[in-house]
């Protein structure tokens, strides 16, 4: 796995188990289906942070979500502002990487001489 790819994920160990948190189109779709809206992060930061946190487990640890591991861990989490920043960045990057940049394609200048 490349360093660039790692930059868009959170890795840690808990109770001897390795966790890798990241977002994928599938997890974002599931989060949205559960009522998550990134635009509401400023209005209800605490609730949304917990949803963001739990959503990041969906890609690789769906069973852990069922077992309530994200909630248990979230209660022990420190530096929540930093966590919110990192998770929001990961979430936004997921969307950003999926869509082409404005200068990625198009705007091709061409001429024809007949």
């Amino acid at each position: 796995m490349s360093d660039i790819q790692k930059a868009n994920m959170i890795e840690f160990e808990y109770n001897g188990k390795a966790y890798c948190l990241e977002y994928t189109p599938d997890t974002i779709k599931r989060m949205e289906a559960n009522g998550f809206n990134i635009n509401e992060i400023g209005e209800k930061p605490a609730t949304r942070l917990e949803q963001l946190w739990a959503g990041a487990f969906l890609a690789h640890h769906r069973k852990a979500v069922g077992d309530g591991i994200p909630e248990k861990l979230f209660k022990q989490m420190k530096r929540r502002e930093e966590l919110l920043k990192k998770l929001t960045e990961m979430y936004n990057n997921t969307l950003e990487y999926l869509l082409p940049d404005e200068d990625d394609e198009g705007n091709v200048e061409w001429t024809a001489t007949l």
Partner: protein
Amino acid sequence: MDGDPVREGPLVDAGDGSDEGEMPVTPISLAEMFTSICPAYIAMGMTWNQFWHCNTKVHRDYRLAWKQRKQYRNWEMWWQGGYIYEALLKVAPVMRAAFGKGKVEPGKYSEEPYPLSSREAEERKAAQQRQKMERMLEVFKRESAENIRKREEQAADNESRNLSP
């Protein structure tokens, strides 16, 4: 429209059969947007599972690879166009002759493909110059040998005249 399947994605049908259906008329959810652009990524070579379950860094790499492929294809088509253009130019006199007077021979088609890089072009140019030099050297040697032979013949001729009473 710029040919980018992702950029041209999500289209929402206005539902009234009008052309306005080609523009997003209502804000769509991320899920709808993902569903809408999924075929574009599949066209770029991703599998359905990769699209939905991979970190989107992978999506970006696929998109960049697709962009490079498109650039290469564009270059390849331009290259092929060169051959067609040259072929047309060379056939044109014959076509003209068919409707005019006199016999016109078509131009000769390229003996080898166009060089793919400036380095290859330089190497070919250098090889051509080398061949030219070798030909010139051969001519020079031949002429020198001929001159020597003539001088020797002349000398022998002079000598035989001097010796004769």
